[in-house]
């Protein structure tokens, strides 16, 4: 054992303590940094040098001090995995629940100004007309109420359609976000691989990549698989979104409007998708199956059979039913000109958008039965009773409102549950990886004490050498 080996050992301890202080400092510095994972110095005691040869002294050796073997990043892949999968479900439910909440708000029910109230006003006005069939004032009220009803149906349809548009626009932005995140993951993969090869620290890059994969999971439930060279692959619907250092871009294809128009054509000339779907840019026309994530939620809401499209169809069905019922009822009546229709549906496009009222005065409304007197209003009376029929527009509307309400209620509950799961997963992850001030303070103190102790060892060594060099052999001088 060499004379100075103790000094070397103490010096390694000083270095180790300093590294400990540095890392504790780094942790405290990043107390509030998003995505930061706490780090620890990993230390290992250095074994004594081997004794070789017959002349090696048989004395024991304590070892050569301590070595800093690395700075560990205290992440747990399983917890991260859990965070990603719950975030995907939470994102899916969140988009659906908020779209449905918006939809149900646009219904404006129950209220004194909603479509339901307007329908009742409309039927009531027919009663008034039936009481005084020749009154232009009563007819004007019927026409006004009818116009207001048509306007409300149109407004409701427009609200749903613009909600669809904004959801589509949002999904398009999220697709860009997904592509950007995938490209960054691919780039980080390359950087991490070469950093690992050259031995440079990768912790900060790993933190960044972990945040990106989480956001990919939130967007579209991308699943992550770890490769041996330090890179990760991200799979979307079973295919590679990120494979090593390559990212495969996706596009959002399909109609541009709720009525299914604007799908365009694929580059190969085939017609674009009939439903909004996520596709690989390299394989247009083939939908990626999304079972989660915000994009998955948006795509499911935008589908032709989704809640928004059904609501829009309900408005169209309302307009059609209203026209059919009222016009059929009035066909039993008579007017001077012989024309009896009250509502007119548009010849093309959405029925809810083009519903118009034909008559302009009392004599043009067929409130009088064929063969009845000039002041007969029995047909108008029959029209006023339509609202009570089982297949009336009122019943249609009521069932639409109820079913949207029930769907929204379920989806809100699901969203709350998914949120709880995501919160608990994220709490578990943070509990493992976040920085705790108390703990870092303790680590800081320990490192400081270790530094002091190492310094003390050094002083002792120094005193020993001083004794050996300066005081030895001076006896009797």
């Amino acid at each position, binding site marked *: 054992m060499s004379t100075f080996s103790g000094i070397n050992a103490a010096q390694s301890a000083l270095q180790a303590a300093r590294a400990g202080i540095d890392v504790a400092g780094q942790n405290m510095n990043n107390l509030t940094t998003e995505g930061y994972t706490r780090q620890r110095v990993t230390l290992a005691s250095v074994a004594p040098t081997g004794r070789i040869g017959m002349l090696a002294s048989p004395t024991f050796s304590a070892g050569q001090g301590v070595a800093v073997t690395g700075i560990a990043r205290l992440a747990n892949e399983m917890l991260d995995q859990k965070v990603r999968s719950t975030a995907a479900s939470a994102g899916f439910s969140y988009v659906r629940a908020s779209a449905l909440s918006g939809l149900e708000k646009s219904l404006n029910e129950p209220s004194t100004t909603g479509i339901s109230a307007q329908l*009742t006003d409309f039927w009531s006005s027919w009663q008034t007309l039936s009481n005084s069939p020749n009154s232009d004032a009563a007819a004007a009220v019927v026409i006004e109420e009818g116009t207001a009803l048509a306007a409300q149906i149109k407004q409701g349809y427009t609200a749903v359609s613009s909600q669809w548009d904004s959801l589509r626009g949002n999904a398009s932005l999220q697709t860009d976000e997904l592509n950007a995140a995938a490209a960054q993951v691919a780039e980080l993969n390359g950087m991490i691989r070469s950093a690992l090869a050259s031995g440079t620290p990768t912790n900060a890059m790993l933190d960044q990549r972990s945040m990106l994969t989480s956001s990919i999971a939130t967007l579209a439930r991308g699943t992550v698989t770890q490769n041996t060279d330090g890179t990760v692959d991200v799979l979307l619907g079973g295919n590679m979104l990120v494979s090593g250092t390559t990212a495969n871009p996706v596009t959002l294809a399909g109609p541009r409007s709720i009525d299914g128009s604007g799908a365009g054509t694929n580059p190969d000339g085939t017609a674009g998708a009939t439903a909004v779907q996520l596709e690989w840019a390299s394989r247009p026309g083939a939908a990626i199956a999304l079972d989660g994530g915000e994009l998955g939620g948006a795509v499911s809401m935008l589908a032709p059979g989704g809640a928004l499209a059904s609501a829009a169809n309900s408005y169209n069905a309302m307009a059609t039913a209203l026209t059919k019922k009222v016009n059929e009822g009035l066909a039993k009546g008579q007017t001077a000109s012989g024309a009896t229709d009250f509502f007119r549906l548009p010849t093309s496009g959405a029925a809810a958008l083009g519903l118009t009222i034909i008559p302009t005065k009392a004599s043009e409304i067929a409130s009088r039965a064929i063969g009845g007197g000039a*002041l007969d209003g029995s047909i108008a*009376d029959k029209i006023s009773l339509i609202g009570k029929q089982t297949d009336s527009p009122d019943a249609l509307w*009521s069932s639409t409102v109820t079913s949207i309400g029930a769907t929204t209620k379920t989806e809100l509950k699901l969203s709350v549950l998914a949120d709880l799961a995501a919160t608990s997963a994220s709490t578990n992850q*943070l*509990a493992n990886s976040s*920085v*705790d001030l108390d703990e870092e*303070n303790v680590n800081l103190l320990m490192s400081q004490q270790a530094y002091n102790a190492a310094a003390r060892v050094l002083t002792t060594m120094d005193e020993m050498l001083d004794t050996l060099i300066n005081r030895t052999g001076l006896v009797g001088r």
Partner: protein
Amino acid sequence: MITRVTSTTMMNSASRNMQSAAAELSRLQEKASTQKNISRPSDDPAGTAAALQVRADQKLNAQYTKNVQDGNEWLTTVDSTLSSVTALLQRANVLTVQGANDGALTPAAKETIAMELESIRDSLLAASNTQYAGRSVFAGTSDAGHAFTSPDYAYAGVKGSSVERRIGEGQTIRLDGDGAAIFGEGADSVFAALDAIAADLRAGVNIGPRITTVATHLTTVSSQQAVIGSRQATVLSAGETLLDAKVSLESRRVSIEDVDLAEIILDLKMQETAYQASLAVTARALQPTLMDFLS
């Protein structure tokens, strides 16, 4: 498993708890300030359907109530007209009986009776053309503006037609008096009968046989008045039913849609306390770290 607790997780859970307490507080505040149990369909989908139904029923009730009021006015007009018609016909009956006393009356006296009968006929004609709100109450659904005109006394109304008001979902009531049935038509009408009596008186023909004619008309009018009276009773009782229904509909609407004030205020107070507690607890829990005790 003992979860590791760090400053970050404590901070996160504190802010999450405060957030959820604040969200609940805001939800209760909305309820308390709007006084509405259901402000959107998802609050209570089944309740929403019931609320829509009740509101529609309330509007219908209001419309039927208007119809009942209108119908009552109509029937009152018809009824009071028929009362005066009865009085006129009773007078005509007396005059006819007087005029039948051939021996006791001079031609001048007969002329006086004839003239009074003619004036009664004019009054009856005016009564038969009584209008309510611009419509002849005895002319059915006709828009002619009158029911009878001299000299042919033809009925201007549409025969078999009736003016009806809906006073309930499955209930309508007839408002007009059937002019043809009450006054008779053309040569068979009460007007023509009075004309004939006056002519007989002037011509010196005994009017004894005509006494029954006038009496028959009188009976017809009385029985028609009884019909009108019973209709009016129906309308009034329908009005009362509607009033009862109005009260019960409103109480149903309130029970479906509106909040229980006492309950909501209690909930709100409790939530306020919970929120303040979470604020206070957070303020205490987040303060100290080891740093506060190191020197």
